[in-house]
């Protein structure tokens, strides 16, 4: 184990390299799903960095690699069939892809947490909501006390900031008769933090007794109870109705500073991204095609795909028939591909687009785009 850590240290952690408030850096990440017949390239050399206390939205249509990206960051990608072809995921300068599962696990929950698309099925049906949140808190407390966490490696020590000075550092336990008073109080507090008014009742409910919106709040509460530095939310509002969606989104936005976390919001819905995100990353067929501040993106989308996406948002004007779908479809990712993956659907396609694939370049300040229209290479 020790050696494993040491290697990751020597590989990655020269403090001068990483920026002051950088939390996560993904470089050159390629992930493929392998099968007997074909390898499907779900992520194609992704570069991405996430700062602290930010809400970053990853937008793209189904199958563009959003969820693969999310699951690879938290380390829940089923491998096989998935395989990391190349690249690194560095969290606080520790290369997660080099860690063994046993150490990888120690980042889940308390460092990187995740909530999922289906609040209806994401909570265990046989345990009370309060017990499930308490379990998350127990994991956090256990790690705080776990000597092996910081004993072996200086890296772990550096990573493992003590998150909850207000909690006495002893291990909360599951008791047959229910939760200890201390643990119950903290669960109540977390439930109130996600704006559940009748926390006293909800704590003793089973998931099936709660509405979808409530369950998603419970999921958020459970994730936040572990005080993670990064919360990945994979389509958290897709299964909810519009008013509930707005409430949950606002909650997540408010919680960023309240609990000191960054959120990576995965969504297919540009409208959702525009409501809450600081920064939007647009993905297409396993590539990041545009990465920009939310205002810049909506004021002036650069990539033709982003332009197409924006024109697909209904604006509630009189000419209701004028929704413009993007013609064509995504290329087959199981075959080796030359050129820009969007070229076949792109109204601005040039000769170069089918010959080389564009690199992500900074076309405007803090606004990166992968398109030959802006790279200066076309002329």
């Amino acid at each position: 184990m020790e050696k494993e850590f040491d290697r990751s240290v020597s590989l990655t952690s020269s403090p001068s390299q990483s920026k002051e408030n950088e939390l996560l850096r993904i470089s050159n990440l390629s992930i493929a799903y392998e099968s007997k017949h074909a390898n499907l390239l779900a992520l194609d050399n992704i570069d991405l960095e996430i700062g602290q206390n930010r809400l970053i939205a990853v937008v793209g249509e189904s199958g563009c690699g959003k969820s693969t990206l999310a699951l690879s960051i938290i380390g829940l990608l089923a491998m096989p069939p998935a395989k990391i072809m190349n690249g690194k995921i560095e969290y606080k300068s520790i290369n997660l892809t080099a860690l063994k599962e046993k150490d990888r696990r120690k980042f889940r929950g308390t460092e990187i947490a995740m909530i999922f698309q289906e609040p209806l099925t994401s909570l265990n049906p046989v345990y009370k909501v309060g017990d499930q949140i308490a379990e998350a808190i127990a994991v956090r407390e256990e790690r705080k006390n776990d000597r092996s966490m910081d004993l072996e490696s200086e890296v772990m020590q550096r990573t493992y900031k003590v998150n909850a000075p207000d909690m006495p550092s002893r291990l909360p336990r599951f008791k047959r008769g229910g939760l200890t008073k201390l643990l119950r109080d903290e669960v109540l507090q977390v439930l109130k933090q996600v704006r559940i008014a009748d926390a006293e009742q909800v704590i003793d409910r089973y998931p099936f007794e709660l509405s979808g919106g409530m369950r998603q709040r419970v999921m958020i509460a459970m994730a936040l109870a572990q005080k993670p530095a990064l919360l990945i939310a994979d389509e958290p509002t897709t299964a909810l109705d519009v008013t509930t969606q707005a409430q949950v989104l606002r909650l997540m936005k408010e919680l960023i500073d309240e609990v000191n976390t960054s959120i990576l919001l995965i969504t297919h819905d540009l409208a959702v991204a525009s409501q809450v995100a600081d920064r939007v990353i647009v993905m297409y067929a396993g590539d990041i095609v545009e990465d920009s501040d939310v205002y810049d993106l909506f004021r002036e989308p650069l990539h033709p795909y982003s332009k197409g996406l924006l024109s697909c948002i209904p604006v509630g004007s009189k000419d209701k028939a004028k929704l413009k779908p993007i013609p064509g479809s995504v290329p087959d990712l199981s075959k080796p591909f030359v050129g820009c993956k969007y070229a076949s659907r792109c109204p601005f396609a040039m000769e170069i687009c089918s010959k080389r694939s564009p690199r992500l370049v900074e076309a405007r300040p803090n606004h990166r785009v992968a398109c030959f229209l802006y790279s200066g290479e076309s002329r």
Partner: protein
Amino acid sequence: MNTASFILRRLFLGIFVLLGVVTITFILAHSLGGNPVYAWLGRTASSHPQLVQLYTEKYHLNDPLYIQYYYYITGLLQGNLGYSPAKGFIPVSQVIVETFPYTLQIAFFAIVISIVLGVVLGVVSARFHHGPIDKSIRAFYLAGISSPAFFIALILLIVFTYFFHLLPTGNAADPSLLTPKPITYIPMLDSIIEGDYAYFASSIQHVILPSLSLALGTFGVVVRVLRSSMLDIMRSNYVRTARAKGLKENTVFFKHGLRNAMISVVTLSSFIVTWLITGTIFVENIFSYPGMGEYVFTALIVQDYPGILATTIIFAVIIVISNLVADILYVVVDPQIRLG
């Protein structure tokens, strides 16, 4: 609705189930045709026609079926199960009290073995699925499921009794030992209560082979159901949530996975009880175990319909009760289910 009133209501409904069972069995048993007295008396019937006459009248065999049914039901309500022609016209209830506890012993051990073995192997199989352990467990249970109980019984007899002389066969315990005084009427239980450990040890030795040969044929169903439901659950969203919390894989597996998978085992358990309790009939005959199985056989052959009816009623009562227990267990394991 609380548990007590649920149980009472189910027991009340159970009475109607039993009434249905009695009626149907009564009609079936009496439509075998011919005067059963000839079967009862055997060779004596031809030499003593007045005896035939006597028994026919005594048991109302010339009356219409509904009159006979009336006599049987009124007897039943007074706790009278009739008299057994197959056992020299002693009360059927006496035969039952003497033999049924032994059947219960076999069935109990068969149920325990098949569920424990099934759950343990199912868990191991799911935990290491697609590995060599999983494959050997699957081969083992498939062999068990595919073999009829009497075949397994014969193999066990040949191996353990004939070749290795490890376990005895015939009787419920060593015949040189005295059967303990009836307190609960279940000899094994009585021997513990009375401190007769020699008898207890001997009866355990005698019960292993019959119950094992029953269990080996059924535990595979538990393995199969548990394994597949476990594999499904380990791919479910809430297991993914548990992993995202940073729980250890073993905690995820046992606390979040197995707890949910046990719901399907509970569903199965009432079927297993039914299969095993009826399976005792064959196994007892193979091992000459003094349970009810031998009586069921002779009763069928000599048209001892009080016996046929009584044994059927007992099986029906057990099935009704085991279903009730399964329903109550359901509520314990699955909070989404409420009694009512």
